[in-house]
C-alpha cells in the first residue's frame, strides 16, 4: 500500500524558521531526515521524498480563458500551515505508514527537542483492494 506523508509546518513570514536555528541544530535536523530516508530506503519502503522550497517562492498557475497559463504569486488560500515536504512510501499496511509519520514527527528542532511536526498521512489511490 502506498501512502503520502505530508509534512505541515506553521505558515510564517514565507521563509523557513529553520534558517534562524543554530548551525548544529540545523545539522541535527537534516541528519535526522537523512537517516530516516536511509532507513526507509534500506527497508525497501521509500518510493520518493522531497523537501519543498519555502512558500514565499510559491507561484500559482492557472489556465486563462484563452488557454494560456497565467503565473501569479497568489492569492493563496488563507491557511495557518503549509506543505514543507513529503514522503511517498510503499508499506505493508496503514499502521506502518503511521509509525513512519510518527518517527518523522520527532525530528529535532531548537535545543535538540522534538519538533512534533504535523504529518498528514494519505493513502495513494490505486487499484481495488485485494479481494477477487
Amino acid at each position, binding site marked *: 500500500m502506498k501512502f503520502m506523508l505530508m509534512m505541515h509546518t506553521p505558515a510564517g513570514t514565507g521563509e523557513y524558521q529553520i534558517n534562524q536555528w543554530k548551525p548544529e541544530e540545523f545539522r541535527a535536523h537534516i541528519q535526522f531526515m537523512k537517516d530516516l530516508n536511509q532507513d526507509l530506503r534500506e527497508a525497501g519502503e521509500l518510493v520518493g521524498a522531497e523537501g519543498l522550497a519555502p512558500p514565499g517562492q510559491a507561484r500559482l498557475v492557472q489556465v486563462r480563458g484563452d488557454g494560456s497559463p497565467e503565473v501569479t504569486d497568489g492569492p493563496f488560500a488563507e491557511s495557518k500551515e503549509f506543505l514543507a515536504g513529503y514522503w511517498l512510501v510503499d508499506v*505493508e499496511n496503514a499502521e506502518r505508514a503511521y509509525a513512519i509519520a510518527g518517527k518523522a514527527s520527532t525530528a529535532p528542532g531548537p535545543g535538540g527537542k522534538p519538533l512534533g511536526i504535523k504529518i498528514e498521512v494519505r493513502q495513494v489511490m490505486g487499484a*481495488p483492494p485485494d479481494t477477487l
Partner: protein
Amino acid sequence: MKTIDERLLRELAPQVLGAVVRRYGDFGAAEDAVQEALTAAALQWPEGGVPENPRAWLIQVAARKLTDQIRSESARRRRETKIVLETAPEENVVPPPDQAPVEQDDALVLLFMCCHPALTRPTAIALTLRAVGGLTTGEIANAFLVPESTMAQRISRAKQSIKSSAVGFVLPPPDERNESIGAVLHVLYLIFNEGYATSSGKNHQRVDLSSEAIRLARAAHELLPDNGEVSGLLALMILTDARRPARSGPNGEIVPLDEQDRSLWDQKAIAEGVQLVSDALSRGAVGSYLLQAAIAALHDEATRPEDTDWPQIVALYGVLMRLSDNPMVALNHAVAVAMAHGLDKGLALLERLDRDPRIKDHYRLAAVRAHLLERSGKITSALVFYEQAAAKTASIPERNYLFLKIARLQAN
C-alpha cells in the same frame, strides 16, 4: 522465437536456482549467479540455438559464475574449502540428461523458502517473483510502480533475512508445512490480485502478474496434486481470470458481474477450473480457497445472470463463514442471501455488519447496501450510499464506476 525462450527461461529459473542453492547453500550468491546465467542464455540462445539440455547448461554456467565469484572474494580459501568439503564428488558434475532430474522438489523447496512466514508479505512477493518466477528486479519494480532501487533493497533484505534466519534448503517439517503452504498460497494470491486488479490499467508494459501467479500456482499444483487448497487457489485464479475479457469496458471501466457479456468468458478455462474444483471436492477437501473457487465456478457456469445458483452460493458462503471470521465473506454472504431469498433479508444481514468495526467504514459495505437498495427501487437511499462508497474507496477504477452509477441513477 524470442518469446519462447523467455518462457522457457522462466520455467527453468526456479529449477536451476533450486539445484544451485542445494549444492552451494548460499541463497543470495546462488541467486545472483543464476540471474547471470539467465542473462547469458537470453543473449546467446537466440543466436547459437537452445542447447540440448538447457537446464544443465544453465546450472553449469551458474555454477561457474558462482565459483568465479567465490574465487574473487577475499575469504576465498575458507569458502572454497567449505564448498569442497560440503559437496559430494558426484554433485560436482552436471547430471547427464537421461538421469531422472530432481528439479521438481527443488522448485517446491524454493517456493517455500521465498514465502517463509518470517518475511513480510511485500518482501516475500518480490522474492518469489524474482527467484521462482524468474522476473528481473526491474520488471518487478515496474509491476509494483516503485523505483528499481527500492525493489532491489527489498529483495536484498529478503535474501539477508533468509540467510540470518538460517532457513535450510529443505522442505519445512510436516508440522510447520501447513503454516508454510498457507504463506505460499497467500503470496501467490496477492500476486494474482495485483495483476487482476490493475489489468485494466494504462500501463501496457506491466508484466502480467496474473498469468505469472497462475503459472506459479500451476507449478505448485503439479508438485502437490493432492492438496485441496492448492487446487482450490489454482482453480479460483483460473475461474476468475476466465472472465477477464468481459470485466472491463473499452475505457478500462469496471463491468460488474451481472452486466458482463458472458459470451466473452473463456469457456476452456472455465472447464479446467470446474474440473479442478470437482476433483478436489470429490477427494473430500474443504478449505477457504477451494470454497471460493466453488463459488466462482457456480458464477462461471451460469449462462445468464438469472441462471446463477444462488441457494448453492448461499450455502457455500455459510461454510466459508464457519471456517473463518471474515467480514468480507459475511458481506458476500449477505449479497447471496439477497439474491436467493429476497432483498430485505440481505439488507437485514447488512445491519449486523454495521456493528463490526472491521468493515463498518469500508466502502464495499456502502456499495453493497446501495446496490441492494437500488434493486429494491429505493433510488434516493441508494444514491446516498453510492456517494458514501465513492468517497470512501481508495481505488480509482472503483470510484469511477460508482460515479458512473450515480450519474446514471440521477439521469433517470
